[in-house]
C-alpha cells in the first residue's frame, strides 16, 4: 500500500488539523473501506431483512452462513494470498509486468481446485438442506475465494481506489438483491448475496484485465521455489488460523453455540460484540497505512539504497537509526490512535450496542473485544515491518504462537466462565504482539550485520 500513502500525503496539503483529518479519513477509507462496507451492508441486511423475510430464523441463518463463508474463504486463501502478493510485487518490480495477470489466472485455478475439494468433502455435512441452497453456498465460497485473489492483485497494482469502488458497487447490488429476494427466505438472501459478490468479482476482473492485460496464458511462477519464498504458505496458514481460532473454538463448543445451518454454528454470546468491535480498527488501520506503509517504507528504501551505493559505515548506521525511529513512531502512533478509539468505545459503547439491538449484558465483552482488535492492528504493523526486513522465519514462529495461544487461551476462557469470554483472544493478541516487538528490536539491532553477512 506504499504508493498510495505517498499520494495521499501530497493531497493532504500540510500539517493543518483539517489536513490531518482529511488525510486520516482518506487513509481510513482506503485501508478499511472494503471491510467496513461489507460489515455495514450485512448489518443493514440483517436489520431490514427481518421485516421482509418470512421468519427471523432465515435472517439469522443467512448471517451465520455469510460469516462462515468469509471465515472459510479467508482460511483457505490466506496462505496463497501471501505467496501471490509477494510474487506479483516481485514481478512488477522486476518489470515482468506481462506475467502478472497470467499468474493471477494460475492462482485462480489453484483456488478453484481447492474450493472444489472442500465442497466435495463438505457436501455431506449439509444433508438436511436443499440442493439449491447447497449449490448457492458452494458458488458463494468459490466467488469469495476468487475475489480475495483478485483484490490482492488490484492492491499489488496499487489500485486501491478501484478496490473501494468495486466493494461499493458489489455491496450496493448485494443490499438491493438481498432485500428484493428476502421473501424467499435464506435461499433468497444468499442468492442476493451471491449476485452482489459476483458483480464485485467480475467488475474487479474487468479492471485488472484493462490495467494489466498481460500475456494470454497462465503462469505458475508463484509456486516456483527459486522465485518465491514458499515458507509464506505456512505463515499464511498459521496467521489465518490464529486470527479465527477463538471464533472457531466458540463455534465448535456445544454450550455456547448452536447449530444454525448444516455445519454452520453461531455463538450468540460471542459473535456480535466481536463483529462490532472490528469496526473499531479503522483508525488504527489508517495510522498503519500512513506510518508503516509510507514513512517507514520510505526510510527503508533509503537505507537499502545507501547500502548498495556504497555509503560509509557511519552514514549507514545513522540511516539505520532513522529506520528504527520510524518504526517506533509508527507503533506509538497506532497505540495512541487505538487508545483513543478504545476510550471512545468505553464512553459510547452502550449507545453503539443499543443501535444494533444488542443487550447491555454484552458490554464487558465488547470492551475486551475492542482491546483485542486494537492489539491485532498493532501486531499486524509489527509483522509488516518484520516482512520488510524479510524475517520470514521469525514471522512464522510468531504466527504459530498466535494460533496456539489463541486456541489454548480461548479454550481456557470457556472453562473459567462467561466473565472471561473474549479474554482468550485479547491475551493471545497482546502476548503475540509483545513477542513480535521483542523480535523486531533484535532484528533492528542486527539489521546492518544481517544485510551484509547473511547473503547466500
Amino acid at each position, binding site marked *: 500500500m506504499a504508493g498510495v500513502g505517498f499520494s495521499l500525503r501530497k493531497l493532504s496539503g500540510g500539517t493543518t488539523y483539517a489536513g490531518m483529518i482529511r488525510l486520516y479519513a482518506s487513509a481510513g477509507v482506503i485501508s478499511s473501506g472494503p471491510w467496513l462496507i461489507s460489515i455495514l451492508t450485512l448489518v443493514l441486511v440483517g436489520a431490514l431483512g427481518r421485516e421482509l423475510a418470512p421468519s427471523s430464523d432465515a435472517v439469522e441463518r443467512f448471517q451465520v452462513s455469510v460469516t462462515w463463508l468469509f471465515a472459510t474463504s479467508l482460511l483457505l486463501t490466506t496462505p496463497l494470498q501471501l505467496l501471490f502478493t509477494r510474487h506479483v510485487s516481485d514481478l512488477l518490480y522486476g518489470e515482468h509486468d506481462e506475467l502478472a495477470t497470467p499468474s493471477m489466472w494460475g492462482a485462480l485455478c489453484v483456488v478453484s481446485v481447492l474450493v472444489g475439494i472442500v465442497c466435495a468433502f463438505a457436501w455431506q455435512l449439509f444433508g438436511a438442506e436443499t440442493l439449491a441452497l447447497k449449490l448457492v453456498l458452494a458458488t458463494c465460497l468459490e466467488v469469495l475465494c476468487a475475489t480475495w485473489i483478485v483484490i490482492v492483485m488490484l492492491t499489488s497494482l496499487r489500485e486501491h481506489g478501484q478496490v473501494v469502488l468495486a466493494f461499493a458497487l458489489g455491496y450496493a447490488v448485494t443490499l438491493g438483491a438481498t432485500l428484493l429476494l428476502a421473501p424467499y427466505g435464506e435461499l433468497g438472501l444468499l442468492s442476493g448475496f451471491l449476485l452482489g459478490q459476483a458483480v464485485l468479482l467480475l467488475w474487479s476482473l474487468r479492471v485488472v484485465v484493462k490495467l494489466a492485460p498481460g500475456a494470454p496464458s497462465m503462469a505458475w511462477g508463484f509456486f516456483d521455489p527459486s522465485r518465491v519464498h514458499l515458507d509464506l504458505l505456512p505463515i499464511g496458514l498459521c496467521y489465518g488460523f490464529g486470527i479465527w481460532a477463538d471464533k472457531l473454538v466458540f463455534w465448535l463448543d456445544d454450550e455456547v453455540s448452536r447449530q444454525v445451518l448444516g455445519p454452520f454454528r453461531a455463538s450468540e454470546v460471542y459473535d456480535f460484540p466481536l463483529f462490532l468491535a472490528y469496526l473499531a480498527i479503522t483508525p488504527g488501520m489508517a495510522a498503519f497505512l500512513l506510518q508503516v506503509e509510507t514513512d517507514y517504507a520510505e526510510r527503508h528504501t533509503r537505507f537499502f539504497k545507501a*547500502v*548498495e*551505493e*556504497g*555509503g*560509509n*559505515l*557511519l552514514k*549507514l548506521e545513522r540511516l539505520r537509526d532513522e529506520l528504527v525511529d520510524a518504526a517506533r513512531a509508527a507503533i506509538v502512533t497506532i497505540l495512541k490512535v487505538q487508545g483513543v478509539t478504545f476510550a471512545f468505545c468505553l464512553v459510547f459503547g452502550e449507545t453503539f450496542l443499543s443501535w444494533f439491538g444488542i443487550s447491555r449484558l454484552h458490554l464487558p465483552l465488547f470492551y475486551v473485544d475492542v482491546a483485542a482488535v486494537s492489539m491485532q492492528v498493532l501486531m499486524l504493523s509489527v509483522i509488516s515491518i518484520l516482512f520488510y526486513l524479510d524475517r520470514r522465519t521469525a514471522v512464522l514462529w510468531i504466527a504459530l504462537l498466535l494460533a496456539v495461544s489463541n486456541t489454548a487461551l480461548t479454550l481456557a476462557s470457556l472453562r473459567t466462565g462467561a466473565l472471561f469470554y473474549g479474554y482468550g483472544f485479547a491475551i493471545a493478541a497482546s502476548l503475540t504482539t509483545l513477542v513480535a516487538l521483542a523480535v523486531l528490536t533484535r532484528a533492528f539491532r542486527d539489521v*546492518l*550485520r544481517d544485510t*551484509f*553477512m*547473511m*547473503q*547466500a
Partner: protein
Amino acid sequence: MRRRADVCLLLEGTYPYVSGGVSSWVHQIIRGLPDLTFALVFVGGSRRDYAAPKYQLPANVVHLETHYLEDALRGHQPRRVRLDGARLESVRGFHGCLRRWSGTRFDAEVEAGLDALLSTISQPKAIGIDDFLFGSGAWEYMRERYLDTCPSEPFLDYFWTLRLMHGPIFQLAKIAESAPEARVYHTISTGYAGLLGAFLERRRGRALVLSEHGIYTKERKIDLNQAEWIDALRPRTQLGIEESGDATRALWIAYYEALGRLTYRSANPIIALYGGNRERQLADGADPARTRVVVNGVDVKRFESALAARPAKPPRVVGLVGRVVPIKDVKTFVRAMGFVCEALPDAEGWVVGGTDEEPAYAEECQALANNLGLGDRVRFLGHQDVSKMFPQLGVLMLSSISEAQPLAVLEAFASGVPCVTTDVGACREQIEGLTPADRALGRAGSVVPFADPAALGRAAVELLTQSARYAACQRTGLARVQKFYAHAAMIDAYRNIYQHAMGQ
C-alpha cells in the same frame, strides 16, 4: 586416500593450462627428472580463463588437480554462528602480528602466532570460513578495523575486499587437507600457491622449495596500479575516484606482501633466477641464508636443427616471443616496428604468442598496428613452436616492462638469433654477461631502456644491417648458453635441491 608422489608442484596460473616461459620451464624440469614422480596442484582464478591443458603431461606426472579461487566464497549457506571471544582473540592477535612483522627481524611472538595460524586454521576448534562469513564477533571486528583504517571509504568496498581476500585463505587451507602426499613440496611463486605451500609445510612436516620467476608481489603491484576495476567499483561516491581506489589498492598490496612473507618464512631454499631478483627477495623479507640463484637452462640440442636451418643472410624479420599481455608491452613493440619499417621498408614484425589470455589487449595492439599503417607489416601469429620460428627470425625483440630471466632469449641464442631487449630483469646479464668470464664472451645483442620504441627500433635496425656485428652476436649468444645456461646444469641443480629437501 591421498595420492603419493616424490615432488608435489604448486602451480598458480601457469602449467599446464597456460603456455609461456614459466610453464615451459616446469615442463622441462618434469621431463628432465624422469626418475621422480610428480603431482601437480593447479590454482587458477576463474575456470572461464583456462581451457584444456596446453602441454602433454609426461609419464612421470601421476596426479593433476585443479582448483579455482572463484569457488572460495561459493556454496556457503548463511547461518547464525557464534564467534566467541577466545577464538576472535587469536585472530586479533594474528593481525597484530602481521602489522608488527617487518624485515627478517625475528620476533618470537610473531613467529608463534604465525605457526598457530598455519597449523590450525580450518581445524575443528580453530577458525573456519563460516566464522569469518557469518560469525557474530566477526562483524564487530570488521567494523572496528574499518573505522580504524578507512572510515570514509564506501563500506561495501571494504566489506567485499575483506571477503575476497580471506575466502581463498580458507579455501587453500582446505586444499592443503586433501593435497597429495609428497616427499617435498615445490611452489613456483609466492602468492596463493605460496600460501598453500606454507600450509603444507606446517601440516605435513615436509620441506617447501620456492622457485620464483617473476617476483609475484611486484607483478601484483603493477597489475593493481593499472587495474581499472578498482576505479570502476564506486563511480558514484562523493570522493574523487583516485582517493577511493587508493585504500582498496593499499589493502591488496599489503595482503600480497603478507602472502609473500609467509611463503619466504616457510620455504627453504628460496630460489631466484638471477641476482637482481634475489636482492628483491631479500628486501621483501627472505632470509639471506636460504636464498640462492639457479639460472634457467635451455636444451641446446633441441635447437640444433633450428641453428642449422638458418639462412646465410639474416631475415629482415623482428620477432617478439611472448604472450600478448600488458606486462610484455606489445604496444611498444608495434611502435618500435614503426621505426624499423621506416628504415627497412621490407621488414616485418612477428608476434609469436598466445592472444587468448587478454583478448581486449590483443585487439588494442592490432588496432594500434593498423592505425600506424603497419597492418600488413606486423603479424600476430599466436602460439607457435619456437624452434620452427627462429630460423625465420632475424632478431628477437623483447619490449617487456618486467621480466625475470626470459627463456625466449636463451632459446634464441641457442638458435643463433641475436636479441634486443629492454633493461629489465636478467636481460642485461643475458645479453652482456654476468661474471667476468661471461662478459669476456662479448655481447649477444643490445639492451635499451623500456618504453622507448625509438631505441628498440634503432637497435634492431643496427643489428640487421651490420653483418659483422650480427655474426659476432650470434657466436656470443651460442657460447653463452652452452657455458652458463646449460639445461643439464639446471636439472642437476634441482635434482640436488630435491634430494636435500627430501632428506630433511
